[in-house]
Each structure stands twice: as C-alpha cells, then as structure tokens.
C-alpha cells in the first residue's frame, strides 16, 4: 500500500515541475490541475475526505477554469 503514495508523490512532483517548465501556458495550467487532482488523492490517503473533496472540486476544477480563462484573455504561451 505504501507504494501508492510513493508513486503518487513522485508523479505529483514531476507534474509540478512540468507545469512550471512548459512554455505552453494552457498545458502548464492543465498540468497544475493534474497536480491538484493528485494532491486530492493524497488527501484521501491521509484520511481527510473533506479536504480531498474540496481540493478536487475547487483546487482542480474551478481554479483551473479560472486560469484557463485568464490565459485565454492574455497569451497562449510564455515567450
């Protein structure tokens, strides 16, 4: 069981690095959303279902949409 958390955390870190290194901002934002989703899984593993729900619905969904709208209104990619 403990490997699940190892795998998830490593995946989370990789996604985080990807999200700050990608030049395409939409892709970066999506990677960040995926990071949030993995964090919400980690919350579930940490026996925090309330926080997991909040992170999944707010951190992953709403925040990502807000970012996407923001990117749409500005520039698609980092120069």
């Amino acid at each position: 069981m403990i490997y699940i958390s190892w795998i998830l955390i490593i995946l989370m870190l990789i996604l985080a690095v990807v999200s700050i290194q990608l030049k395409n901002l939409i892709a970066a934002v999506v990677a960040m959303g995926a990071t949030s989703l993995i964090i919400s899984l980690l919350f579930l593993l940490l026996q925090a279902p309330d926080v997991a729900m909040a992170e999944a619905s707010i951190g992953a969904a709403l925040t990502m949409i807000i970012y996407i709208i923001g990117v749409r209104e500005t520039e698609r990619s980092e120069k």
Partner: protein
Amino acid sequence: MIRKIVYSIFLATIVLALVMFFAAYPFGKNKMTVGEYYLNNGVAQTGASNIVTSVVVDYRGFDTLGEVSVLFGAAAGVAILFFVLAENRRERKNITSPNFVVKVGSRIIFPFILLFGTYIFIHGHLTPGGGFQGGSIIASGFLLLYLAYPGTRVSRKKLSAVEGLAGLTFVLLGLYGLMLPESSFLFNFLPKGQLNALLSAGILPIIYIAIGFKVAAEFAGIVDDMMCEVICRGGEK
C-alpha cells in the same frame, strides 16, 4: 544563471530547515492536544458526527465567518476589476458554439450536479463534505452551463441576494447566540438530536447550508465575471 544558483541555494536551505524542523514531529505519530479534546467531546457538544464540520462551523466558526468574508471580498474584487476599472472594452469574440451532444448532455447533467452539491452540503455534518465542497460543486455546475451555452448569464441581482441572505443568516444566528444567557458567538442553541440523524447537531447544518449557498453564489459570480469577460463583453455592457 548566478541568480538561479543563488536562489537554488536559498531554496535548499529552506527545504533543509523544514526537514530539520519536522524531524521533531514524526509522521504518523499521535501529536494531538486540542484535536483530542474535539474528538472526545465533539459529538457530545455539537451533535455532529463529522468532527471536521464541528470544528469548521462550531468551534472555529468565527474563523469561518472571516474566511467567508475574504471570499466575498475576492468575488467583489473580481467584479470591480472587470466591470468598473476596465477601461478599454474589446469587441465581442466569436465563440464557436459547442456541439449538440455537449448542449443536451449538460442540460441533463446540470440538475443532477445541483442535486449532488445540495446533497453534499445538507449532509455536511454527517458525511465528508459540506458547504464549501457542495457550494463549489454547484458553482462548477454553473460553469458547465456557461460552457455549453455561451452567452447565458445568471442574474447578478439574484446571486447577490442569495449571497447576502446566506451571509445574514450566518451572522444573525451567531449574534443570537450572544443574546442568550450562555452568551457566545455561534452558540449552538437548537437541540442536538440523535447522532447520525439528518436533523441533528443544532444550528450546524443550517450554517453549513448558508455557507454552501454563499460559496456557490460567490464562485458562480466569479466564474460568471470571468466567462463574461471572455464572451459577452462589448455585446452587452
């Protein structure tokens, strides 16, 4: 490049310090003091089976009030930024209409999302979830609606009425507690009821429902402002 190296050293220091600092708090060991009290007495004192809820709404209810106010401030800030301060308004963009499947699907799913969100915040004191989660789920339902039908807008007046009423409920319930002889803000004056029954835990579900409405209205407002910024600017206002 030197900047990157220097800052990397800084960050390494920070991480190292965190590791050192948390060596004193080993992972997975019991280190509760206040939490233990809440776990042991929470059910008897608040009647809610979800202790997180009883902490959020009852023990630390005042913090939650402040937090909801921050949320309100942020929502108001977004609205102000986009509708008051924005000077150069742009032309209406051509949004490609979503396809038929998305439209019909969202029309079918939307009520269920609302129902699901409502379920989550009504059962906030019994199961995981509550006002924040349910509210944001409802807001994401509205988001779906915006995506499927670009150009639809929720009436701002109704949103602010809902939001204001919910906030007022929260504050008035809290203030009523001050008027009672026991006298504390958010005093739980209703009967606690039976554990794990829907109608239990006194004022906790009422407040969480109010929070749910407030969060839903505010996030829907934020999303509405944002979407409107993309879609309907220049056309309507």
